[in-house]
């Protein structure tokens, strides 16, 4: 299928800054949908609020740009109503982990078949560079002028602990790996949580003197390592990438189909 069928050309150019990592994720997703040969009519993309959330406007799926943090419950309503749809839920780090944190853990717990992508740029971009729950200690932000004293979440551990049946992490530097992981996540039956580390040169890179888009991408190359790799073994300080959980567990909509069957037996 031509990519032009998967995007809404008339809505371009997109609003992202030059060098922003969100476009890389969009590109990767389009490739995956194309490679999997998914019917665009079966595709839903439900996003929250923020720079990353604008991605839903650009794909030619059934799309919903919801409220801040509320993408997952909106997506849950859709999936429960039409389980045959492929529902992808891109969220920013503040979106998914702060205001939407409660929704995130409960979507994991239910193991409902949604593909959640946490686009982690460690900052609130759209509101101009405030610290997020994934910023981590010592990060400079407009609301942390002396350095953040907040501890960060580890998205992977959180998703694992909350019961997601597919958990992975990748970065905007590792485009091939990203595509592979997203493909598996979309195909996975159950809740998939994929963290993608994406660069925000405009607010995160500049404010923290970490440089522009290329420098940030290089930092993903240098500061991460694949799960089970020698590199990681030698340097446990590195951030592990790869698939952390990939298990078959009862999926929520299938379980509800059993409830329907049971209710009709009685």
């Amino acid at each position, binding site marked *: 299928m031509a990519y032009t069928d998967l995007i809404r050309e008339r809505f371009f150019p997109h609003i992202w800054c030059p060098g922003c990592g969100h476009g890389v994720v969009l590109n990767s997703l389009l490739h995956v949908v194309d490679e999997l040969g998914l019917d665009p009519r079966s595709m839903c993309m439900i996003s929250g609020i923020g720079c990353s959330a604008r991605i839903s*406007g650009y794909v030619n799926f059934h*799309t919903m740009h919801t409220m801040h943090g*509320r993408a997952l419950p*909106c997506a849950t*309503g859709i*999936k429960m109503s*039409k389980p045959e749809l492929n529902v992808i839920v891109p969220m920013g780090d503040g979106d998914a982990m702060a205001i939407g944190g409660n929704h995130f853990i409960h979507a994991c717990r239910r193991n409902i078949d949604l593909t959640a992508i946490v686009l982690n740029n460690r900052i609130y971009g759209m509101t101009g560079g405030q610290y997020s729950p994934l910023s981590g200690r010592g990060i400079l932000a407009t609301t942390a002028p002396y350095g953040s004293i907040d501890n960060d979440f580890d998205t992977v551990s959180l998703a694992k602990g909350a019961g997601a049946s597919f958990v992975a992490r990748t970065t905007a530097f590792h485009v091939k790996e990203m595509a592979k992981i997203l493909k598996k996540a979309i195909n996975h039956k159950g809740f998939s949580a994929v963290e993608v580390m994406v660069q925000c040169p405009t607010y995160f890179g500049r404010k923290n003197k970490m440089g522009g888009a290329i420098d940030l991408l290089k930092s993903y190359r240098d500061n991460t390592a694949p799960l089970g790799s020698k590199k990681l073994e030698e340097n446990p300080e590195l951030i592990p990438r790869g698939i952390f959980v990939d298990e078959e567990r009862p999926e929520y909509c299938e379980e*509800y189909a059993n409830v329907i069957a049971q209710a009709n037996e009685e």
Partner: protein
Amino acid sequence: MSQETRNVRFVQGNEACVRGALYAGVKFFAGYPITPSTEIAEHLAIQLPKIGGAFIQMEDEIASMCAVCGASLAGRKAMTATSGPGFSLKQEAIGYAAMAEIPCVIVDVQRAGPSTGLATKVGQADVNQARWGTHGEHSIVALTASTIQDMFSITVQAFNIAETYRTPVILLFDEVMGHMRESLTIPEAGELSVVERLKTDVKPGVNYHPYLAREDGRLPMSDYGEEHRFHVTGLFHDIWGFPTEQPQQVDKLVHHLVDKIETRVNELAMWKEFYLDDAEEVLVSYGSCARSARHLVESRRQKGHKIGLLELQTIWPFPKDLVREKTANAKNVYVVELNMGQVLSQVKQAVKDPDRVYLVNRLDGTLVTPTDIGKIMRVIEGKGI
């Protein structure tokens, strides 16, 4: 068993609401437990899977209202139910539903507030919250009822209005109505009209504009999963649903959201009236209070008093013309409600002489009794207590 007895049931108000929703074709419910609305969730948890619908208990009130928005876009008639504090939490997504024009029904079985207030006691103080709880400008429809039978039919109406105008509709019941039991006659299929969603007839491959209104103001829909793919956002948007900040388009959309309801005030007005033709004293009331008001009217009529009752079933958009007309010949108007005068202020704006409008209320979590109303009327009429 005869046909008649088979369709008569002795039920609680909350169950009547559920049966009305099922009659109207509800296929999705998301909610979070809260007294005194919880029986609505409990009954639907049993009933929805039986008809292939879906019930889900979400992690909070916010999530419930969001799930309702999602389910409605996926083509299902969807509802949620809550009470005061939960209704406050839902406001964000109610505003989203208003902006994105998503048909849905929100039941608020009111209890006494503010805050967690009196969890098991009656109140009617969410009237203004129903109208003004969200931020920004849009209109809203809010309905209520004072009998179990009416709770059934008003719930059907709520779905009909939601689907017709692509709007959230709020059912402002109250604790007494939710928990009271009365007999309910369930109408046969077809007896009450049930409005189905207006679907677009735009052919595959031809551009579908989800936010392009027809001449009659209605917006034909396409459900998620069907042929047409489109964008839904809470931002100001154009006819494609794509975000816009163009002043002209923003202005047009605000007017559309307000006008589609406010220009139909008289069409949307539902009410009941008792002895209004020659009434010199007119009571205006709704929900459980209207029962006490009616009791007083009946007993005073027996004594030859010229007294009548206007029972409102549509609270928003407020039926100003109706109230003005029905109270035109009254010497005094008494608004009976369980708050500090939320409908009273609307009635005062509607009538010719606002100084003739008095409030009869209670704020202590108990129902206004006919005696309460009688006492206040005597004071105002200058007859002492």
